[in-house]
């Protein structure tokens, strides 16, 4: 039976969590510097348990200060982008929607660039904060223009988001054209999406938004299913569509804003992970949302690891990997779709 039950959700979540743990382990043991496999695991586990940690200072630093926090951050962002992508696809009733479609990302980018031009470094906590504020302002602006007769209309929202996003892109281009060389390079790498620039302390700022947003959105999962059938159907079935749209829009945007402010615009994840999850597990949001979160986390951690090791010691931007590997994999999923629908 394909019906989604609590048992099913827990089972699938457990399996995907195992996958995620495996990917995290890989991320911690692989890198441009060779740290022996067993030693890496040892260092990680020992530090979690407390007590003496083996390895040299350098090796410890690589595992505990570089790879592990970066993997966790990538996982959080991957989960965040995937969940908000799924929610926007439901909110806008559009399979082509991704977390950036409503302009939040452009707002975050403008915030980050302003912060950079003001002299804040990417390693500071100030830059993600300003970026986040930029994103929030955009969210409110799009909401203001996206309403019709005081209600949120998906099409008007989409239009407002795209227009404001385009306008902000023009602002970004303007900043790029007047930038000096030094800042220019940083801006461009930020726009491509990158975890090497992120300060691991931002973990603690991103985490509550992603987790909080996830919980709020998940509680609406059943209503999201109904909303996929259109506003009329949802109203007929007693769903408070206006409230649902507002909650989804705000919290999905919040998750996106938190994610983007920390590492820039990583593309593809928010679009294909929900689709991939849907192809495997079906469209029911009660399984789709946790599945997207876990698969998205694994996917982004894996992509980031590849970005680090593919051309070592040179690092590639992670957005290149998500596009190059994500795209063909997704096409493969589409081809084999009829035989899928596991469990």
């Amino acid at each position, binding site marked *: 039976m394909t019906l*989604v039950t609590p048992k099913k959700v827990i089972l699938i979540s457990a399996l995907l969590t195992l996958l995620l743990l495996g990917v995290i382990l890989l991320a911690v043991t692989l890198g441009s510097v060779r740290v022996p496999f067993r030693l890496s695991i040892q260092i990680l586990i020992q530090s979690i348990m407390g007590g003496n940690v083996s390895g040299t200072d350098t090796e410890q630093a690589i595992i505990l200060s570089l790879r592990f926090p970066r993997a966790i951050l990538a996982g959080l962002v991957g989960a965040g982008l995937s969940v908000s992508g799924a929610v926007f696809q439901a909110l806008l009733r559009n399979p082509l929607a991704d977390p950036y479609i409503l302009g939040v990302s452009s707002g975050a980018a403008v915030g980050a660039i302003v912060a950079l031009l003001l002299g804040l470094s990417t390693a500071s906590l100030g830059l993600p904060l300003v970026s986040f504020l930029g994103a929030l302002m955009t969210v409110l602006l799009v909401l203001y223009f996206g309403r019709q007769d005081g209600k949120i209309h998906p099409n008007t929202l989409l239009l407002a988001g795209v227009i404001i996003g385009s306008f902000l892109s023009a602002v970004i281009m303007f900043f790029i054209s007047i930038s000096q060389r030094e800042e220019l390079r940083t801006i461009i790498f930020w726009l491509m999406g990158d975890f090497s620039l992120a300060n691991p302390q931002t973990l603690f700022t991103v985490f509550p938004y992603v987790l909080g947003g996830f919980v709020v959105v998940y509680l609406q999962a*059943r209503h999201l299913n109904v909303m996929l059938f259109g506003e009329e159907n949802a*109203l*007929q*079935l*007693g*769903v408070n569509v206006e409230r649902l749209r507002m909650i989804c829009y705000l919290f999905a945007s919040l998750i996106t804003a938190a994610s983007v402010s920390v590492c820039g615009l990583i593309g593809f994840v928010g679009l294909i992970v929900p689709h991939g999850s849907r192809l495997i597990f079906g*469209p029911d949001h009660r399984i789709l949302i946790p599945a997207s979160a876990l698969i998205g986390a694994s996917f982004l951690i894996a992509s980031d690891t590849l970005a680090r090791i593919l051309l070592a010691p040179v690092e590639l931007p992670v957005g290149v990997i998500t596009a190059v590997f994500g795209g063909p994999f997704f096409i493969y999923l589409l081809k084999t779709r009829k035989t899928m629908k596991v469990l």
Partner: protein
Amino acid sequence: MIDVRSISFRYHQGWVLQDVSFRIQKGSFIGLIGPNGSGKTTLLKILYHHLSPQQGDILFDQIPLRKMSRPAIAKRIAMVAQETHILFPFTALEVVLMGRSPYLGHRLFESSKDLEIARKAMEWTETFSLSERAMDEVSGGERKRIFIARALAQEPELILLDEPTTNLDIHHQRDFLDLILTLNKERGLTTVMASHDMNIASEFCDQLILLCDGKIDRMGHPEEVITRENIERVYGCDVWVDRHPVSGAPRIHLLKK
């Protein structure tokens, strides 16, 4: 059961419905007929409070609809729309279970009682065998019946149908209408059906409401409403009206010019 009091509605300029009043008795089967643009669909939308009339009121068992919460309305009134665009392939059972939504509130998962009610609804509509099939794999007629099952899962007292027989083959039309009639007569499910097809409305409904330009032109038994004069006045078209040889209900026949 439903008391419609002098409602008037407009979208932007121009009243779509003007000063419409009528009563629906419990257990009746009402047919809503009239030309395109006369306000049939709008009236249905107002009946389940998707739209709110600018003037007038609708009372359900003496309580105004606008004072009822959406879930409360959904537990009493169900609607089967004309067309539903399927965006993602849910299964038939999942769709029918959505009918339980007004009863679930904040709960995320359906209980076994909900499953039971859904199963019964699907049995009545003979769609239980389609439970696991995706909605984009079933035929038009089967899809219609699945949506009726969903409406039934809401355990409503009133069901609204919008052009339910369009695009259905006659055997599906017959099955569908038989089902509705059985639900109406044997389970006391009050039914309001908007239809282009006056003969079907005449055949199956107790009462007809003939709308014209947003006003009620005639309301009453089919014999009273379906007359040559009324049809000519409302549609501007001359027809021949006689009686159905088996049931005796009035039917119209088009005349060549």
